[in-house]
């Protein structure tokens, strides 16, 4: 593997009880690169994240990780039982050796004041930052963020994405981020992967946002806020995600985007 290549996936396929969740997924993440994974609900984003994290062994394909790769993971959400008394400080220390400098860590995600706060009493946005701090506490080479802005209002989302960009620059780590939409994550993203069981399109955000496959997935109205573009669907997905009608063209022959016409 290349020196600064963190992970490399080739032809990943995952089946669950006979249902194809993911097929033919290729993915590379380099040091310092921010890759955003977008796709509708049920597209297999979380499944792909689990494969990257090593929590799930794919049924097909290969997954390579750089030697000694440390991954920091920020789960979609964390529910701590109200019956479990746990301060933010203690929560962060669960992750790693006791020598951890919790103060500096919290400063980095701008929530120093929450050190002694009970985890079960955090607001949505505060919780996301605490989770981000936990992911950072292991000094990871790769940050995997599963919908980091979930349950955060729009202003909070913008701040959070800015923060993620600052952290990426400071730590020079790779970032794999799952997101629902492209709008807010556009600016800092190096590569967007549009997923719907297979990789529909990928490339620079400005490319993807005008790609017919992206438009087909997210619908015209949403897409028009990003670009003016007319196109016709040539395929759609049924409820299980299988492609109805004309098959998608070859996704993997060319890098970058592809056309559906």
């Amino acid at each position, binding site marked *: 593997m290349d020196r600064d290549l963190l992970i490399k996936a080739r032809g990943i396929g995952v089946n669950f009880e006979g249902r194809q969740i993911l097929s033919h997924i290729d993915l590379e993440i380099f040091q310092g690169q921010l890759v955003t994974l977008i796709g509708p609900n049920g597209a297999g984003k979380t499944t792909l994240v689990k494969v990257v*994290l*090593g*929590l799930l062994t794919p049924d097909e394909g290969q997954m390579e990780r750089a030697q000694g790769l440390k*991954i920091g*993971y920020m*789960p979609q959400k*964390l529910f*701590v*039982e109200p*019956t*479990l*008394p*746990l*301060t933010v400080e*203690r*929560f962060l220390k*669960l*992750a*790693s050796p006791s020598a951890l400098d919790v103060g500096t860590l919290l400063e980095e995600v701008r929530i120093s004041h929450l050190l002694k706060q*009970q985890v079960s009493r955090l607001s949505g946005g505060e919780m996301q930052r605490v989770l981000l701090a*936990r992911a950072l506490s*292991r000094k990871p080479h790769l940050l995997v963020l599963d919908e980091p802005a979930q349950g955060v209002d729009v202003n909070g989302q913008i701040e959070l994405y800015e923060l993620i960009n600052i952290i990426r620059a400071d730590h020079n780590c790779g970032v794999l981020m799952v997101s629902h939409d492209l709008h807010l994550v556009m600016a800092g993203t190096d590569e967007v992967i549009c997923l719907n069981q297979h990789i529909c399109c990928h490339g620079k955000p400005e490319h993807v946002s005008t790609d017919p496959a992206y438009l087909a997935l997210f619908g015209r109205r949403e897409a028009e806020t990003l670009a003016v573009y007319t196109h016709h669907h040539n395929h759609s997905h049924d409820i299980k995600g299988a492609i109805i009608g004309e098959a998608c063209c070859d996704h993997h022959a060319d890098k970058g985007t592809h056309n559906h016409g």
Partner: protein
Amino acid sequence: MVRLVAITMQTKELITMADFVLYALLAGISIAVVAGPLGCFVVWRRMSYFGDTLAHSSLLGVALAILLNLQMQVAIIGSCLAFAALLLLLEKKQALATDTLLGIIAHSTLAFGLMVLSISDRVQVNLNAFLFGDLLTVTRSDLFWIVSCCLVCGVVLILFWKRFLAITVHRELAMIEGLAADRLYALLVFLIAILIAVAMKIVGVLLITSLLIIPAAAARRVSNTPEQMALGAAIAGCLAVMGGLGLSYFWDTPAGPSIVATAFVLFIVVYLKPTSGKR
């Protein structure tokens, strides 16, 4: 002379009396000390029904042990561990919703256990003792058995405390950070199984779970860290054992239910205590 003999007899009676109360107290306290912290995990992980099922199914083990004339203590622990393994396996398969599955197992094993007990006429079986406990008949060898099992559970719990806590807060995070979450969970379940097996003597299969969850729930109100809650639960459990034994001694109420009733009163008292501002 006659008077002297009478006095000697009285003293002797007093000593044996003190002995069995002392045995009961030691047995009850060693269980309460471990049940408190272990019960915290039962509360945090919402496993109280799981504990109930384990306890109920262990009655089937008791019944089989009587039928086959096995050594009782070993049989109870063996059956608790076996049912714990079975539950872990079924939970992983996820064939049914967990609570449905637990409900089926809890009550059918209880039913089978009661049936087997009724047909075994080898020994005079005191069913009440198994259902509600029989703390006041704890013998020296029972005590040795209970204390050593509690000691083992306690030591393992202390050694694995941080890891158990990490998998309880977030299983996947813990796994990514290098913990074998499934194996740790299995270990925790086996600890609970052992504790339930030895606690059966104290409170019986129907009341065991309460010894796990009531002290922990009471301690939650007054704690800010997991460790404080564990310690608080251990203390609350000990108080319940002492109070319950006192009730039983002076008013001749059954020991097991008296302990649970004391724990409940303690829980209510802690919850009625006004909170001092924001916790």
